[in-house]
C-alpha cells in the first residue's frame, strides 16, 4: 500500500444472491487525513460498499484494505480504530442513552466518561433518556456520539445528516472537521451534493453499483452546472438552446429550463437583454448531474 492511503478498495464486487446487484468493480483509495465523499442516489451501492469495508457483508470478488490490512481477515483488529455511523440507527430499545454509550465504550477498553460528556454536550444529547423515547434525529445523535467515542482514526459516516435539523447538521459538520484536524480520516456517504461540497476534499460518484468518477471537489465545482429557469411573455427557448454551454433545454408553458456550464457572465449578458418575468438559478440535483455523466459516456 502507498503509505498515505487509509482505505484501498480494489475491484470490489458484491452480488446479493445470484442476480441482485450490489456493487460492481468498485475501486478507490482514501488518503490519510482527508475527508472523502462518497456520493450517489439511493440504492446506488454506497451502503453496500461501506458494509463490506466493515465486514458486515462479504464481497463476491475483489478486496479492500484498511490501514494496509485486509478488511475481512483482520476485521476485528481494524475495527478498533474505526468509528461508524450507520445510515439508519437502531439500538437496544430498553436501554438508557448513557448505558448504551457505556456498553459501546466497553468494547474499546476503559469507559471514558469525560469523552461521553464532552461529545453529548456538543451534540446536545440527553444521556438519561431511554432510547425508545428518542426521535429519529436524537437517535442519530446517539449514533454520532457512540461512533466518535473511542477517538477512531477512521470515521465512516453513512448518510450522516438525514434526520438532523440544520443547526445540528452544522454542529455535526464542525465536530467532523474537528476530528479531521486532530488527524482522523473520514469517509462520508451522501446523496446530497451541497453537503459533500461543503466538507469533502475529494469525491467518488457511484451510480447503479459502478464508480462513475473520482474527482477533486474543486474540479467538480468548476465543472459545475447551474440549473436555470426563466419565465417570459415571449418564447425564449430558441434563444437559449443555441447558446454555448446549454444542455437539456426544455419549455413548459412560459417557463424555459436548461442546464448551463461555462462562464456565467455570458449567460448574464444574454439574460440582461430579455424581458423576464421570473428567474431562478440553482444547483442541479444529483440526478441531473448523473444524467450529464451518462450522456458524456454515451
Amino acid at each position: 500500500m502507498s503509505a498515505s492511503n487509509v482505505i484501498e478498495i480494489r475491484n470490489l464486487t458484491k452480488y446479493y444472491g445470484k442476480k441482485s446487484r450490489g456493487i460492481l468493480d468498485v475501486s478507490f483509495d482514501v488518503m490519510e487525513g482527508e475527508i472523502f465523499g462518497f456520493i450517489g442516489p439511493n440504492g446506488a451501492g454506497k451502503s453496500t460498499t461501506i458494509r463490506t469495508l466493515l465486514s458486515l457483508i462479504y464481497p463476491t470478488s475483489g478486496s479492500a484494505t484498511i490501514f494496509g490490512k485486509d478488511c475481512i481477515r483482520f476485521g476485528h483488529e481494524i475495527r478498533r480504530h474505526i468509528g461508524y455511523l450507520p445510515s439508519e440507527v437502531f439500538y437496544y430499545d430498553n436501554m438508557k442513552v448513557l448505558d448504551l454509550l457505556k456498553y459501546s465504550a466497553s468494547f474499546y477498553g476503559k469507559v471514558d466518561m469525560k469523552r461521553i460528556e464532552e461529545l453529548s454536550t456538543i451534540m446536545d444529547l440527553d444521556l438519561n433518556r431511554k432510547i425508545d423515547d428518542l426521535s429519529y434525529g436524537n437517535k442519530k445523535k446517539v449514533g454520532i456520539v457512540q461512533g466518535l467515542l473511542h477517538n477512531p482514526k477512521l470515521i465512516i459516516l453513512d448518510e450522516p445528516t438525514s434526520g438532523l435539523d440544520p443547526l445540528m447538521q452544522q454542529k455535526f459538520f464542525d465536530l467532523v472537521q474537528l476530528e479531521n484536524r486532530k488527524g482522523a480520516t473520514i469517509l462520508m456517504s451522501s446523496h446530497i451534493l451541497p453537503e459533500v461540497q461543503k466538507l469533502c476534499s475529494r469525491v467518488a460518484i457511484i451510480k447503479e453499483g459502478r464508480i462513475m468518477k473520482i474527482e477533486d471537489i474543486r474540479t467538480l465545482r468548476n465543472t459545475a452546472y447551474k440549473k436555470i429557469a426563466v419565465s417570459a411573455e415571449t418564447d425564449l427557448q430558441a434563444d437559449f438552446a443555441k447558446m454555448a454551454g446549454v444542455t437539456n433545454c426544455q419549455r413548459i408553458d412560459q417557463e424555459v429550463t436548461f442546464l448551463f456550464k461555462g462562464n456565467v457572465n455570458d449567460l448574464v449578458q444574454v439574460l440582461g437583454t430579455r424581458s423576464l418575468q421570473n428567474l431562478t438559478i440553482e444547483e442541479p440535483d444529483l440526478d441531473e448531474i448523473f444524467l450529464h455523466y451518462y450522456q458524456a459516456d454515451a
Partner: protein
Amino acid sequence: MNIVLRELRAHLRSFLIWAGTMVFLIFAGLMKYSAFQKTGEAVNEIFDSLPAGLQAILGMDAEMDLTSIGVFYSIFFLYFLLLMSVHSTMLGASIIAKEERDKTADFLLVKPIRRSRAVTAKVIAALIMIFLFNQITFLVSAVMVGQYNLTGVSLTGPIFRLMAILSAVQILFLGIGLFLGAFARNAERASGIGTGIILGTFLLKILIEINQDFEGLTFLSPFSYFNAYEIMFDGAIPFGYVVLCIGTAICGIAGTYLVYRKRDLRS
C-alpha cells in the same frame, strides 16, 4: 463478558415470565394431586379407562398409581420437557437472530470483536439462563413435593436426577435453536421452524407410544428418550440418549459458528 451481561439483562423480563409459568405449572399440578390424594383408588380407574393415545399425550401409562406423590410428579416430566424445549429453542433462535431483526447487528458487529466472540458470549448467556430455569424448576419442585410427601422417604434425589436429564434435553434444543437463529436469517422464520420441530417430534412420541411399529424412530424424538418413572425410582439413566442429546447440541452450536461467521448480515 460485557455481551454476556447485556444478553442476561435483555432477557430478564422474558426469563421471569418463563420461570413464573413454570412455578405456576408445578403449583397448579400439585393442587390437583391433593384432590387425587383424597379421592384415592378411583382416580387410577378413571385414568386407566382413557384411550392409550390420550394417556400418551398426558404422559401417563396404565399401571401408574396416581395417588403416590412420586409417581404423580413423574407425569410432570412431559410438561417440563415441552416447556423447556420451547424455551430453549426460542432462546437459542432469538439470541442470535434478534441482532438482525432489531437491526442492532450494525452496532454490535462493527465493534473490535470477531463474530465468533459474539456467538460465544451469546451461547454462554443462553447456557446460564437454561441452567437457572432448570434450577428454579428443581427448587420449587423439591419444596412443593416435600409439602405433599407424607411417606417419609425424601424425593429430592429422584427429582434432582430428573432435572439432570432435563438439562440434557434443554441443551439439545438450545443447540437446535442457536443453529436455526444463525441459519434462518430471520427471527420469525427461525422460531417458526423451531416450533415445527418441537411439534413434529412430540407427535412422533405419541405415534411411537400408540403404535409399536414406529419404535425404530425413537431416536428422532427427544420426547421419547427418557422415562421419568425409571429415572426417578429405578435410577435407570439411558446414557446413550444423553450422549445423543449433547452430541446433537454440539453439532448445532458448531454449525452456528460456521454459518454465522461466513454470513452476510442484513441491514
